């Protein structure tokens, strides 16, 4: 069997275990519908049901978050990274807020920005931007010294060394930051949709279905959220492969 198809084994195993759990009733059938019901809920929800709308809202919020985070954090990361002393002087603050659960910032952002979409998007941006900032700065700081020297030796002025070498050198690490950032942004957006006055979004749908005891719909929303997270990651991986072809070589 081709190695490409190996992941199917895990998926099939997972579904089989689930089915088994339903058949032998390890869990109350009300809490654990069978996989076919869950799949049907995904299908009906995404084709004409309300799940599609929720999905699109979550995509929209997460996209705004990551775009804002990237616009803020990439230039700032380059700036901080290009002077190691500058980075060291703000490193503690960055690490501190990077370690602070972004969800703890919700009340603060709520006070400032109200209960609208801004709060959800900005908290997610805040979390993601610190992750991106940290990675971009390290990418810039860890640019190969030999390569920078080589450019200087060939007569490249300082600014050209930055644009021709340092920026490109930092790209692989920048993509690590973007991938981690988008995962974090999605987590924060989903949590925000659950608890901060939301009327839509996957997070809202999960908690809504749970309260109404619509278990297949709840599982459907969870799986769609999972697929979304996976798709975001995959998207950045594909972009990276395409534009940062030298990464890891």
């Amino acid at each position: 069997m081709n190695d490409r198809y190996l992941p199917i084994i895990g998926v099939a195993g997972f579904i089989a275990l689930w089915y088994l759990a339903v058949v032998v009733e390890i869990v109350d059938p009300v809490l654990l519908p069978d996989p076919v019901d869950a799949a049907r809920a995904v299908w009906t929800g995404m084709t004409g049901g309300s799940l599609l709308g929720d999905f699109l809202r979550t995509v929209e919020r997460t996209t705004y978050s990551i775009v804002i985070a990237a616009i803020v954090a990439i230039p700032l990361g380059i700036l901080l990274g290009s002077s190691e002393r500058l980075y060291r002087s703000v490193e503690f603050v960055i690490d501190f807020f990077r370690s602070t659960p972004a969800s703890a910032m919700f009340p603060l952002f709520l006070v400032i920005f109200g209960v609208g979409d801004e709060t959800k998007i900005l908290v997610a941006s805040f979390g993601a931007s610190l992750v991106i900032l940290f990675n971009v700065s390290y990418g810039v700081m860890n640019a190969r010294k030999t390569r920078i020297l080589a450019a200087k030796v060939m007569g490249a002025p300082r600014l050209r060394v930055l644009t021709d070498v340092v920026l490109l050198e930092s790209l692989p690490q920048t993509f690590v930051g973007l991938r981690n950032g988008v995962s974090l942004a999605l987590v924060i957006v989903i949590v925000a949709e659950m608890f901060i006055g939301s009327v839509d979004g996957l997070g809202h749908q999960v908690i809504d279905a749970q309260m109404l005891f619509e278990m297949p719909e709840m599982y459907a929303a969870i799986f769609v959220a999972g697929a979304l997270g996976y798709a975001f990651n995959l998207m950045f991986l594909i972009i990276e492969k395409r534009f940062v072809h030298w990464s890891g070589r």
Partner: protein
Amino acid sequence: MNDARNSAGSVAELAPASAHITIRNLAKRFGEAVVYDGFDFDIQRNRFLSIFGPNGCGKSTLINMIAGLINPDSGEILIDGKNIRDVRFGYVFQNYREALFPWSRSIDNIRYPLKFLDLPRAEQRDRVDRLVEYFGVKIDLNRYPYELSGGQQQLVSIMRALVVEPEVLFLDEPFSALDYEMTLFMRDQLQRVFMKMQMTTVLVSHDLEEAIYLADDILLLSRRPARVADFVTFDLERARHADSLTDPRFVTVKGHCLDVFQREVRKD
């Protein structure tokens, strides 16, 4: 000067008249270690100089100071009376993997330094074409460096250093990361280019055979603080080839250099 040319193994009188690079009263220390202290030397124009010496004696430091990659603590290095910043030079790093730009195709790597010279497009193209012809390159230069073998990558590095038609070419242990077969091949490539382009060339090598094989002159350095342990001229006609390694003149010079080297290593 003639003395030095004729008899392999004598300390040469420095001849400022044909000196291309003059080093005067050079001093450099790294922390506690005094690498250079009152070091004087002249590098002759359009000759191939190999620098050889004990490990850690400062061979690479010397060419890095000449090339302006490291600043000396004091002293003066002039190239035709000019500062290195005003000189067109090429530099080949030992670690080609980290010196080439992996995001650019090999041909664009070679073209890169031309961006900083004011040359018409046609001339830029001609230079690259000429270089490709010199080397008789059989590799596909549209490939990215990481798609090439180690030897091919170093060949691209050397072409990149040469495309500006440098007044001085520096090579810092350029072949030490290559296997023996590739090293032999690259030596001959380098020799051919040197014969065609005839520019002042400074090679740092930890391989005595290679240092002599390629050299017109060999600078033997002492242990730290580095001094001129000996300056040896090797005037076997070019092109040299595998047989040159067993030529009596080669054997004599190598024996002499080895003696000097061992004497320096054993010194306290």
